[in-house]
């Protein structure tokens, strides 16, 4: 993102897959972290920690980031953001997105994890197309 500062906008959407039984809770926890202003640090921590996403793990990560433990626990246990995560899943399904990661680069659908060079080439193509 730093390399394309000001020229690229990244939007993260939740697409927990049903086969990953702990994923949905992790996505909901990330939204609780977002509400506390720590979305990206929590997001990065989840990717580093996968697949350790049991409730205690999710609460521990929040504490490590200095989030209020009581607030975060309430948010997670109430499943406060379950509907928002589900909305992302429904939107993904409407776009035929059933695998992760899937990228839409100015609407161009790219499925699967890409080597950095390939991703960079796709971004450059999209930038050229906009010139």
């Amino acid at each position: 993102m730093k390399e394309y500062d000001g020229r690229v906008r990244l939007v993260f959407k939740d697409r927990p897959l049903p086969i990953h039984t702990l994923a949905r809770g992790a996505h909901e926890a990330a939204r609780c972290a977002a509400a506390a202003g720590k979305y990206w640090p929590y997001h990065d921590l989840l990717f580093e920690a996968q697949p350790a996403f049991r409730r205690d793990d999710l609460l521990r990560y929040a504490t490590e980031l200095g989030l209020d433990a009581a607030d975060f626990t309430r948010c997670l246990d109430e499943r406060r953001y379950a509907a928002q995560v589900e909305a992302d899943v429904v939107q993904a399904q409407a776009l035929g997105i059933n695998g992760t990661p899937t990228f839409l680069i100015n609407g161009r659908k790219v499925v699967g994890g890409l080597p950095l060079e390939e991703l960079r080439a796709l971004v450059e193509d999209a930038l050229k197309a906009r010139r």
Partner: protein
Amino acid sequence: MSLHGRRPPRVYYRFLLVILALLGVSVTRPSVAGAQIELTVYAAMVKGPPDAPVTIIEFSDYQ
């Protein structure tokens, strides 16, 4: 206002967008294979400026 004194649905839609914007939520409509789907975008889950020439929407799974 319509003849029956009811606002057309577009007015309600715009009102809803204003409310969502105040909550840090916006809507984007990527065109994928000719189909346009409305996607909600949460400000907290976005990096980069809204007027960037390239938007990457990443659907991902933490696990």
